[in-house]
């Protein structure tokens, strides 16, 4: 457990967010939008750095703030992207935002995928639904540093063709020829040319070798559960598998008491955990 660094020890007013402005709104699916935001403070925007897997609090003053994975890669210095599924009060307010609207951001928060330790390895990324957000950041980051990694494979599942996010990226990944990119949907229609089937099934069909491989998965709890089972069957060891946890969060600084799993706080100690680390946590998912 000591491997997880404690973060979020910002002095002074850690609950006070930075002001930012929406520069682009992309409607991904019927209930997911991606927002690109820029800090109002230019200096801050210039100096802003983070690692794939880190999260941020995107907020609308008057509605509140919520934690979202940063979906843009660290190399993207023009804006920070969040992908938001409309579910509650805050996300509804975020969905109402238009270009030019004022938002707040507290970022980066939490830990990140240990990409430095994965150098020279193959990486298998398995995402489902809105769970693609941190994986997009990760995948784009690895593409940016393509030479540092071995074989890159991405399996991305969605319920229906219209539930697929990041269409432009998907097209790029499909065309670049440098990575193995598979999209699959649960139920297809006549226009769909990709794979049809649940993510774990597709994964088992692909049967990636655990040899020198890291598996990263993020998505709906059910998908994760079966993906982990499949990975286990294929011989992946717990320390080779990474996932991100999702919890209700308010403060984002390990204080308000919601997101802890036993003694560990998802907002500061997470959200990225290896399966090995998860195994050491009390079972409260």
């Amino acid at each position, binding site marked *: 457990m000591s491997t997880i660094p404690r973060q979020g020890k910002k002095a002074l007013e850690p609950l006070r967010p930075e002001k930012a402005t929406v520069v682009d709104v992309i409607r991904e699916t019927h209930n997911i939008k991606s927002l690109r935001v820029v800090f109002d403070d230019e200096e801050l925007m210039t100096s802003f750095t983070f690692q794939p897997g880190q999260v941020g609090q995107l907020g609308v003053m*008057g509605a509140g703030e919520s934690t979202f994975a940063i979906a843009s890669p660290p190399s993207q210095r023009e804006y920070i992207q969040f992908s938001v599924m409309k579910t509650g009060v805050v996300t509804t307010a975020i969905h*109402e*935002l*238009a270009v030019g*609207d004022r938002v707040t951001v507290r970022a980066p928060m939490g830990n990140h995928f240990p990409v430095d330790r994965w150098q020279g390895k193959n990486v298998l990324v398995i995402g489902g639904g809105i769970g693609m957000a941190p994986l997009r950041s990760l995948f784009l980051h690895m593409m940016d540093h393509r030479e540092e990694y071995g074989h890159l494979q991405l399996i991305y599942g969605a319920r229906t063709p219209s539930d697929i996010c990041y269409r432009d990226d998907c097209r790029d990944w499909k065309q670049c020829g440098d990575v193995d990119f598979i999209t699959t949907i649960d139920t297809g229609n006549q226009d769909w040319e990709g794979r049809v089937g649940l993510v774990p099934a597709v994964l088992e069909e692909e049967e990636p070798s655990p040899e020198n491989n890291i598996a990263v998965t993020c998505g709906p709890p059910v998908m994760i559960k079966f993906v982990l089972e499949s990975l286990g069957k294929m011989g992946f060891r717990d320390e080779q598998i990474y996932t991100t946890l999702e919890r209700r969060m308010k403060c984002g600084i390990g204080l308000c008491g919601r997101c802890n799993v036993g003694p560990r706080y998802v907002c500061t100690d997470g959200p990225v955990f290896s399966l090995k680390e998860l195994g050491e946590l009390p079972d409260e998912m």
Partner: protein
Amino acid sequence: MRIGVFVCQCGTNIAATVSTERVASAAMALRDVVHAESIQYTCSDPGQRTVIAAAHKYALDRVVIAACSPRMHETTFQRTMAQAGINPFMMEMVNIREHCSWIHSDMEVATEKAIDLVSMGVAKVRGQTPLFSSHVPVVSEVLIIGGGVAGIQAALDIADAGMPVTLVERGPTIGGNMARLDKTFPTLDCSSCILTPRMVEVKHHENIRLMVNSEVEQVRGYIGNFEVDIRKKATCVDEEKCTGCQICEQKCPSEAPDEFNAGVGETKAISIAFPQAVPLVASLRKEYCRLYIKGKCGICKKVCPADAVDYEQEDELHTEKFGAIVVATGYELFDWRQAYPHYGGGLYPDVITSIQYERMLSASGPTGGHIQRPSDGAEPKEIVFLSCVGSRDESIGRPLCCKVGCMYIAKQAILTREHIPDSRTYVFYMDVRAGGKGYDEFYRRAQKEAGAVYLRGRVGKIYPRGGKLVVMGADTLVGENVEVEADLVVLATGIDAAAGAGSLAQRLNIPYDQYGFLSESHPKLRPVETTTGGIFLAGACQGPKDIPETVAQASAAAAKVIVLLSHDELETSPMIAEVNHMRCIGCFKCREVCPYHAIEEQGLRDGRRVAVVIESLCQGCGLCTVACPPSVISLRGYTDNQLIEEVTAVLR
């Protein structure tokens, strides 16, 4: 969120008292308002184009229009929204004319109020989400309840349009009250001659299924998708086998009152109502049958050549699906006896009702068309008609007009003179109402040609004297008391809804009044609709009517049904209730208060039972939203948070 506010000047209607410019600039201070302007006539074509242009220019997603009452122009501006590419429900109207400029004179005060009202509108529209109508499939079959002239007309019209119809009649034959009439006013054509062919047409129409001796027991479902339980009562006669030969009736030893003839004469326990009955099938009334009373008889079974009598027959329960229902249950005469003890309260046999008189006039009636005094069979010479017995009489709590009394008295007076040329008729009347086409002429004909003496006044008392009846009244035109010695007194009794109409209305979940008349949705604009979608009214079940009106309304109802069912699917209003299943606790208090039975129970995968709104049934009243303890039902367009925001917007 990008809200545009448009403040209408309505020429000077608003601008004379409200500074629309100030309202617009104040609106700009409200959160999420990105554009506000004042427009001279917003509803005009250029006005609407201004709104649409602004919507595009400022990329508006919500609009507030401060103008006249939403009852005036809400639909106008909803269409404007659609043209501007904005969901029509993302527009809120604020009433600064009827509720502001027209009732205040101080510009300062009215402008401040208009600003408040706009801030309420903005607060409300901020919480609005796009709404979309949904569609439900419809069953194309139609149920018509009641086989009188209204039901017959509606059934034939709908069936001719190619839609299957089930006509349910609770009596043994269709035809209703009209079948009992001799002639009809003001043309004096023979009632059966007009009606009987239509009855036969019903019987043979390939799209009509006729169910007599049947009643509607339960109605579930909603517009386009009703599920109805119909009970077909046992009559001890197999409808398929009976040939209508009437041998059973002739041989039957048990006498029974003749309901068709309104008690004039008697019939048998097993009988056919009248010779032109449709279907022409006997039915047995157990309450009068010797077999059921004394346990011994069985003659009818023995004599029936078709072996159609079956004492073991049981009620049948049919459950059928219908897309629409037409209620045509008709009327019955007000039972005058309790209310008018001073007319003998039914003790004097020679005081009869107009329908009894009608049966005597009928050639096919029990007296063969001869007018006879019930007491001695003699032909009456002095006949007195009393109008408004049980109508327009506040003293017994019946202020309603029966609408047809004046005209049928005139008809009966004319027919009386035809039957008994040396008779004299007197009519005590309140007012003569003869508003229809040819009606007034007809009434004057009764006076002139039939020599009927019209006396304006209510009769105070009727009592027997020396074999005659003394009718004491007043001629209020002359201001004198009048006494007429009569051989026969005919009461033009008032009209009530058919017995059981109220309880049927409850089963159908449609409103009705104190007389049992069923209520239309709107007296002018929706006269054949009820407040429950898919249920329509035809004929006197809705209120007193004569035959032409009844037939016209029946055809109107038929037209409505045909329009409704001409689509495979129904579009439903989106401003209805909706349940958040995640938080529903399954207490079903919503179901208890819903006037439309629009809530049903649904099991979720996790085992919880939750409420769901049947979208096609919900009318959007919002009763359930208040009854719901955890407030998980929201009324779209009027959610709790929208109302809270609207209220607090003006208060803080």
